[in-house]
């Protein structure tokens, strides 16, 4: 079988599996370790303060778990996890909440989890079924709907977490105009600057994924966080190795030539040497696998009525 199957680039798979191993190993280890330090995340410290302020003002806390298309993904789940904590605090303060959902899948899951939170707190009578709402799955219709809710309900605290796009600033500036305390986080790099400009607290990058561990200190989550840090260190190490290895191979600049070219899974000898470029380095070859288009493989042929019309791969 061998190389005929190597279409995906084994080194990328190896790195991914190594990272999976590091995360799982630390999750197992964390059960035995107590009181691990997690640095302070200002936006999460502010949750109690924001909900408390909303209670004093008698105004709702509004949450948006991002604008994920069609189905729920890990980002939405993480946002809902954080909102479960916010809702728990709000339930204890008997403060109204509003969770605005962009798609129907998020709506159903958010409704389940938030109702569970109220149930666990023994405050199910305070749970309003309309507090978790599906607004629209059209981006700007959703933005208009949520902006309208913020203005009409005069939300005292707003939490925007998950995937946000061009509507981020519309939501954040509208909430700012009614004086709401805002905690936000976007997994989309493009929107983080807008949130930083308009919100009180912003979780940047993977702080969003650290939030559950920070809020609950659950061993699984804390272990996962340590695993993530190991992965980051490993990546930093790989970058350092990559820089050194490529610099070594590319040393000599334009005087450095090669007469070999990697082609279709093997080295071809060139008639005339060419400058040794970044694409000729060993690392580049490892990380950019050749799909070996010309390898012919003899396979048994299907009968005509069994041949799919969609072609091969």
């Amino acid at each position, binding site marked *: 079988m061998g190389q005929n*199957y*190597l*279409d*995906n680039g084994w080194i990328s*798979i190896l790195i*991914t599996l190594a990272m*999976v191993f590091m*995360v*799982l190993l630390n999750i197992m280890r964390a059960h035995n370790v107590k009181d691990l330090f997690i640095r302070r995340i200002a936006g999460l410290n502010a949750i109690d303060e924001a909900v408390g302020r909303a209670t004093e003002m008698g105004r709702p806390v509004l949450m948006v778990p991002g604008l994920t298309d*069609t*189905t729920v993904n*890990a980002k939405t789940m993480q946002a*809902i996890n*954080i909102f479960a904590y916010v809702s*728990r605090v709000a339930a204890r303060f008997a403060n109204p909440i509003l969770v605005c959902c962009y*798609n*129907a*899948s998020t*709506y159903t899951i958010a409704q389940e*989890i938030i109702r569970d939170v109220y149930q666990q707190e023994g405050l199910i009578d305070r749970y309003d079924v309309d507090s978790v709402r*599906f607004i629209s*799955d059209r*981006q*700007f*219709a959703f*933005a*208009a709907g949520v902006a*309208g809710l913020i203005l009409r309900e005069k939300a005292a605290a707003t939490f925007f977490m998950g995937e946000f796009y061009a*509507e981020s600033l519309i939501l*954040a*500036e509208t909430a700012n105009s009614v004086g709401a305390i805002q905690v936000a986080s976007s997994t989309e*790099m493009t929107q983080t600057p*807008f949130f930083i*400009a308009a919100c009180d607290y912003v979780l940047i*990058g*993977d702080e*969003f*994924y*650290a939030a*559950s561990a920070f*809020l*609950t200190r*659950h061993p*699984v*989550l804390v272990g996962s966080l340590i695993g*993530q840090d190991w992965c*980051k260190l490993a*990546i930093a190490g790989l970058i350092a190795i990559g820089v050194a290895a490529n610099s070594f191979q590319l040393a000599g600049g334009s005087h450095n030539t090669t007469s070999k070219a990697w082609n279709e899974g093997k080295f071809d000898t060139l008639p005339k040497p060419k400058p040794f470029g970044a694409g000729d380095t060993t690392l580049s070859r490892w990380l950019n696998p050749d799909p*070996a*288009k010309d*390898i012919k*493989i003899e*396979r*048994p*042929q*299907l009968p005509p*009525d069994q041949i*799919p*019309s969609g072609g091969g*791969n």
Partner: protein
Amino acid sequence: MIDIAAQLVPKTMWNAPNNSTELWTRIVLALLVGIALFVGLLNAPIQLRKPIIFTVTFVSGLFYVLFWLYPAPINRQPSDGPRNTFEALSFWISDSQGVIADLTNIIASFLIGLGIYSLMRVHIGKIKKQQRDWEFSVVLVSSMVLMVIFGYVDFYMRLQPGNSKMAGSGYVGWTFWQFGKDLLFNGLLQNMDAGMFSIVAFYILSAAYRAFRARSIEATILLLTALVVMLSLMGLVEFYWAQGVDAMHLSNNFKLDNIARWLRGNFQTPAIRGIDFGVGIGLLAMGLRLWLNLDKTGSDA
């Protein structure tokens, strides 16, 4: 006529010939199994629900893990059959990916019904009780109903053999339904979308004016780099800044576009890469916890 349940010229284990008895049998069987599953899940004891959810999540995730990690067949031709069991699995994974993706879409389509139910409950309730701002709810409900009616009638009419000219430009063959849909979709929805988006420009100005203040050293550095990048996007400023600069002179490095390029290449791009690594690894860890049921959701934790 629309060919209901039309299937492709086959053949994988997932489909059957058009209008064949096999196809209809499969549809009916799938429906029955679906109903049985639905009823079964509704009546499942509470202590069984978590294992069921775990199993479904694990199996669904396992497919995509295999899809990405299991060796894909190389140079597979349409007429090729698998050589051995190892390859048969890779063929099956490759053939099934589209079907699994469709399953996700089907589940999402059912959930839209739930979403509409939520929307209607809130807004029809508001209209009935004539609560504050109930007029907006009337607009919402009537817009939704009108868009659905006009959209479907127009879609159906365009599929009819005699109406092929409708798709072209110039309103040829258009009736009340096409003009109605055009007004609702192109005339209203698209422009309101664009209108909402254009608000961002105004909000960028007010947010930047309020937030971009040199209150600390870090904020001052941010402010100055932002100014350089914004100036570099202004052709007029860039043009006059570069006047008289010799390309071979040291001053060439201080041309606006070169400073902006240096900032982008040496600060912005590496910073974004660093954050992207963090986000990617966070997503991987979160995905693993969900897949293996290790995650404690907010309600459990």
